[in-house]
């Protein structure tokens, strides 16, 4: 009865996994047997995605040894959720056991680092799930920016070719070139200084449309981006997503949805942008119209 357990914690990097079998797997599944059914909103709270540690994904990879458990389910904050499953675990402290020195997490690669991270993340995740305020989505669901790209960080954050060779300009324009694209280079009109006055016309040469009066409102066609400058040092771009929030990709690093204060970005004009102190303008990227390199 082999069992695969995935520690669901990362966004860009692959999650750590461990496979166990025999008595160890049997003991683990005993602890995970369904107890009392979850009541009221408990099931939805357990299944709601959160940032950071999200629980353990348990997969019975062979013939399921415990019939009451589906082949794949999530164990989080003492609860179990999966197909036909919304119950408390027989051992509600299962995760604490799993991450202890006696637990199967000892077999995970780089376990010391993971434990240090989990020490902070586990109580935070449990507390967060208790406090989650569930909001019913309005009906019909209103898309704030229907034409804007989805926030799909995992697509860019591959710790390889896509991530390292595409920068903020690639991400904002949703255009992968693998060349660390520079405003104006494709049009033979690259910027000559790191100022709004120089980078803005270079982006216009790439067919981005300057919309200084956009005032953080989504365009009817295309999606909104914002140009900011660290004077004489560098430029940076943000893009507005389908949910109305802004995201960005600082150079060759991972895509993120937070600013330098760790806050979600509702308006790049007021976000903590570190050294990128000059807000230049909003611009519109019309899909299929632009050319960058």
């Amino acid at each position, binding site marked *: 009865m082999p069992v695969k357990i995935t520690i669901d914690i990362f966004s860009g990097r692959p999650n750590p996994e461990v496979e166990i079998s025999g008595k160890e797997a049997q003991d683990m599944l005993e602890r995970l047997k369904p107890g009392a059914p979850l009541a009221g909103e408990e099931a939805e709270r357990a299944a709601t995605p959160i940032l950071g540690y999200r629980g353990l994904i348990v997969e019975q990879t062979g013939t399921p040894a415990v019939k009451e458990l589906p082949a794949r389910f999530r164990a989080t904050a003492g609860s179990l959720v999966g197909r036909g499953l919304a119950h408390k675990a027989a051992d509600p402290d299962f995760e604490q056991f799993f991450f202890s020195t006696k637990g199967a997490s000892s077999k995970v690669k*780089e376990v*010391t*680092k993971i434990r*240090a*991270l989990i020490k902070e993340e586990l109580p935070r995740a449990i507390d967060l799930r208790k406090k989650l305020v569930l909001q019913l989505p309005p009906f019909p669901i209103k898309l704030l920016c229907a034409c804007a790209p989805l926030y799909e960080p995992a697509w860019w954050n591959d710790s390889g070719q896509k991530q390292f060779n595409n*920068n*903020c*300009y690639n991400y904002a324009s949703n255009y992968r070139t693998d060349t*660390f694209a*520079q*405003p104006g280079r494709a049009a033979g009109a690259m910027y000559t200084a*790191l100022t709004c006055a120089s980078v803005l016309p270079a982006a216009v040469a790439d067919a981005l449309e300057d919309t200084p009066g956009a005032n953080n409102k989504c365009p009817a066609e295309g999606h909104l981006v914002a140009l900011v400058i*660290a004077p*004489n*040092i*560098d*430029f*940076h*771009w943000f893009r507005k997503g389908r949910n109305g929030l802004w995201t*960005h*990709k*600082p*150079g*060759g*690093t991972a895509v*993120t949805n*937070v*600013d*330098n204060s760790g806050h979600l970005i509702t308006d790049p004009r007021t976000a903590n*942008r*570190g*050294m*990128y102190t000059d807000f230049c303008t909003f611009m519109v990227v019309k899909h299929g119209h632009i050319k960058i390199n």
Partner: protein
Amino acid sequence: MDTSRSTKEDRIFTAGVSVFSGRPDPAWTLDEETGSRLQQLFETLESSEEPATPAPPLGYRGAFLRDDSGHEWLAYRSVVTHTAPNRSEARRDPGRKFERALVDSAPQGLVPPGLLAQEFD
């Protein structure tokens, strides 16, 4: 016939600073002697179990050293992380000696001095 060439090829080290978003980050080549000296400096640091402090997305995010055999040393604030194929190890550097030595090895003017002053002063 060239008889002066060493039988053992020198390692090539690349150093750099992770700081820009739009422009490529500044990077420079180090000779074997400087790279090895930095590597020895790392070896003098104490092991750390603490995870490295995450850098903010925009601005200075640390300095790196890489060799041509897949080893990378990444220094940010008081932790230096060495990553080699199939393993990684963190060491404490409370005085930021490794990070400063790495940044100081940059050719003059390559890294905007104002940025470094803000970070290290």
